[in-house]
């Protein structure tokens, strides 16, 4: 119960964080650690690919909120892609789609970090 696995990979200057499973109060520390590790490596272009994320609660949103200022202060950003319907509903309901760039697929998201070609 409450399982979460997180894959982190580098796509050029972008760190792609790919959570699989559920992010709730039980698993959020694992998610926070993965994000903090990326930031500690001074990689501030972070893409959350949510294709395997079936659920995120406010605890998970808090983890993202807790890092966004640090990341943006250093010229980076946290963006999202491949949100499932219920995950998108959470972000949208809270107005977070105004705070974070949301892309349908990863290639567009990576391009957004790199700027216009």
């Amino acid at each position, binding site marked *: 119960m409450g399982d979460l696995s997180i894959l982190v990979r580098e796509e050029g200057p972008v760190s792609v964080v790919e959570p699989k499973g*559920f992010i709730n109060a039980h698993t959020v520390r694992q998610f926070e650690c993965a994000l903090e590790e990326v930031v500690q490596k001074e990689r501030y272009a972070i893409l959350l690919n949510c294709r395997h994320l079936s659920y995120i609660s406010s605890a998970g949103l808090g983890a993202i909120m807790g890092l966004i200022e640090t990341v943006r202060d250093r010229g980076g950003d946290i963006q999202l892609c491949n949100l499932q319907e219920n995950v998108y509903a959470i972000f949208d309901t809270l107005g977070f789609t105004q*705070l974070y760039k949301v892309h349908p697929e990863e290639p567009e998201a990576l391009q957004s970090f790199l700027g216009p070609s």
Partner: protein
Amino acid sequence: MRAVVEQSEFRLVIPSQTRYLNLVTGLAKRAALVSGLDDPTAAKVSIAVDEAVTNVIMHAYGGADDKSVELEIRFTGLALEIHIWHTGHGIRQDQVHLPDPKEYVKHPRKGGLGLLLMSRFMDEVRFEDNADRSECCMIKKLA
């Protein structure tokens, strides 16, 4: 066509541990589907239940893992009712202050979003703080 669900109710008591969140959210989602709600709405019901039970574990019980949380799911024919009881530090309805999402977006900070999700995803959310135990009641209308 919506399945007709007889008026009924069932209860579940879990330890006050976050490891059981997936169990209760899965149950809430199944109950919502059985009551006739569609899949996206059932997912929202399960999220509201996650937030409510998390609030009990983390705030009402202050993270103590040796308490219990009682859930009752009622099918009334008109609505799905979810009652959550605990014996920790409760809140009264007049103590509930929902953050304004527009202000939240302007001034991002950590925390404070659980109640907002509950209120947005359910039709009614009520709190009662009684001497012996406190309750959070959430209602999703079927119509």
